[in-house]
């Protein structure tokens, strides 16, 4: 069995993925297909490790987040990767890390897909590594945008014609799958995403400079963590099977002495951390 490709994909594209190809048979891998046709079994990420949290006793399950200029990757590492789990817990956040990992999916119910990464290796790196990765991922994303456009031009999108244009077989197959799966695909969204990422690399072009080290001071960090804890506790208290209504959460939290803006910020931060999600618009549920 040959080694599977380590795709370069931004979190903004990866987290949009909801197409899953399950391998049948023991040694056939599963894939996540992104809207731009990346057919991902394995990925390579360089970004900022923002938090690491143990979810089970004896560090049997650890959750971590790695942020890139477009979004956040959720990492889950368990007892079957003790070395990686140990490395994650030892790195002092925030830190720049290089991660090779496998694509994982979680489907709480039919049609709802959450993607995450099960890391195979994690190493601490320097900011230059992140910049190189960001540039490389911009180029890879542009290649996929191009491939999707070519695929859409074909009257019958098929992998054979795309490989003849020089795209890899994996990408050609992924693009065909993506075109059939994601209806009304908004390619321009990803063009904007690439531009945003490029602007981070050339700050004088009017973009925000990519913070050299992830922003918050320890004190602020602690403060916002406290708020998150309060909000999370309130959601847990009032949620039912279906979750809790956004407005109810805000109301309860304001009663507890928080202002609306802080609460909304905190709900977003809890979502980023993967502690809550939005099963239907306006409803929040803990994971």
């Amino acid at each position: 069995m040959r080694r599977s490709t380590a795709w370069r994909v931004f979190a903004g594209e990866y987290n949009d993925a909801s197409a899953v190809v399950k391998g049948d048979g023991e040694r056939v891998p599963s894939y996540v297909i992104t809207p731009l046709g990346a057919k991902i079994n394995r990925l390579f990420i360089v970004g900022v490790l923002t938090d690491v949290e143990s979810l089970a006793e004896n560090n049997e399950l650890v959750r971590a987040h790695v942020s890139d200029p477009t979004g956040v990757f959720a990492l889950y590492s368990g007892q079957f990767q003790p070395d990686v789990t140990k490395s994650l817990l030892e790195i002092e956040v925030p830190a720049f890390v290089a991660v090779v990992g496998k694509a994982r999916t979680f489907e709480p119910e039919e049609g709802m897909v959450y993607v995450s990464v099960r890391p195979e290796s994690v190493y601490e790196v320097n900011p230059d590594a992140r910049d190189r990765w960001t540039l490389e991922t911009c180029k890879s994303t542009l290649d996929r945008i191009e491939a999707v456009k070519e695929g859409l031009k074909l009257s019958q999108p098929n992998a054979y014609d795309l490989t003849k244009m020089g795209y890899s077989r994996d990408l050609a197959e992924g693009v065909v799958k993506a075109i059939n799966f994601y209806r009304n695909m908004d390619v321009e969204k990803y063009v904007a995403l690439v531009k945003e990422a490029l602007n981070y690399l050339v700050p004088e072009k009017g973009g925000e400079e990519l913070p050299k080290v992830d922003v918050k001071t320890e004190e602020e960090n602690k403060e916002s963590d406290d708020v998150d804890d309060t909000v999370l506790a309130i959601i847990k208290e009032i949620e039912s099977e279906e979750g809790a209504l956004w407005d109810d959460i805000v109301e309860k939290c304001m009663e507890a002495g928080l202002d609306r803006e802080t609460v909304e910020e905190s709900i977003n931060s809890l979502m980023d951390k993967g502690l809550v999600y939005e099963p239907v618009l306006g409803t929040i549920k803990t994971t």
Partner: protein
Amino acid sequence: MVDDVSSYIDDIVSMIGEDAEVEREELEKEFRRFLEYGVPPDQAKRTLVKKFSNGKKVEFRKLSEVKPNESNVNLLCRVVTVNPKEVKVRGEPRKIFYGLLGDETGVIPFTSWSSSISLEKGDVVEISNAYTKEWQGVVQVNFGERTSVKKVEDDRLPEVSHEPKPCKIADLHTAFGEVDVTVKILDVSEKEVDVNGEKKKVYVGTLGDETGKAQFTAWHDFKLKKGDVVRVVGGYTRFWKGIPQLTFDDRANVEKVSKEVEVSYKPVPLHKLVERRGGLDVSVEGTVIEVREGSGFIERCPECKRLIQNGECKVHGKVKGVGDLRAKLVVDDGTAGIGVIVGRELTEQLIGKTFEECKRIASEEGGEAVLRLLRERLLTKRVALRGNALGDEFGTTLIARDAKVVDLDVRKEALELLQKMEGES
């Protein structure tokens, strides 16, 4: 719905013969019934032909029309080549045959998994119930236990004569049979070999075109010289771990041409290299995504050069190890990944430390410290590599004879890309 049902019925009638004991109306009724059930018309046709021909007349397919993943394929063709091979199937040793089949429309590879089938080169055979697969973009015919092969008279098929296929070096892996290439001779030397007790002179070397390089063996003195550009019509290709080897003899037509051929040293995208499995003296670029265990300062057995563990060689027992330095990398360009082996001198250059320095670090801080140093220096870096790439069941591994870290001006490249994108929108 299919409008031209009647043309399908015509086909069926002509295949099962006019004197078959079935009315046209009956055929049409059954055919339409299959279509109502969503059976593709070609499949319905084949089923009916089979049903009413009582197995007397079979529809033979032309090799050029056979597609991947078909079953019940019937062929009338000639065995162009056949070779035995020992393989293990679920741990059991088994003898299989592989080779090429040809008819007037083409040549395709086959594998026979059945022990009861015997084939000879040049036989014209009727094959029934074969199945097809795709392997590396090429359709392949397989014979299983249900497949039967019957030798028939030679005159059932015209002698297969195929024009050698015009081809670039990078496409040799998809060519079967004779090829037609225009190449530059990169080096050549004379060798004496023993063929069935007879001494023979052969001319071996490397050649290339703008897509890649290959080894060659000429069994005839074509007076080839380094730098010559020649057109070789009628050579055969074999592969060793993905490295192409072109063989030709006095039956081939070799002529010097005045055309200029540039041999390429441009990096090959990794997915192309992996698809070809390997390559001779290829250039590639990619990012180091892993520095494997076993990299760094290692000790080898003084007798056999094998890696030793805890001062013990697997073959020679307790030995005094000889130190060495190497890197085992995984390099991936986002389209595919390969393994890379980097020897002592190149590793020294890549990490900016000499072997002696690494040896000292290993003895003072332990071997792990050298591995950490390698990871610190190489992980996430873009590298340009050159060397022979060998493919096996675990993927492709490049043995580096040249390795450099690529200097990237990220800001400059990002700015150029941004300007290009803004120019387009």
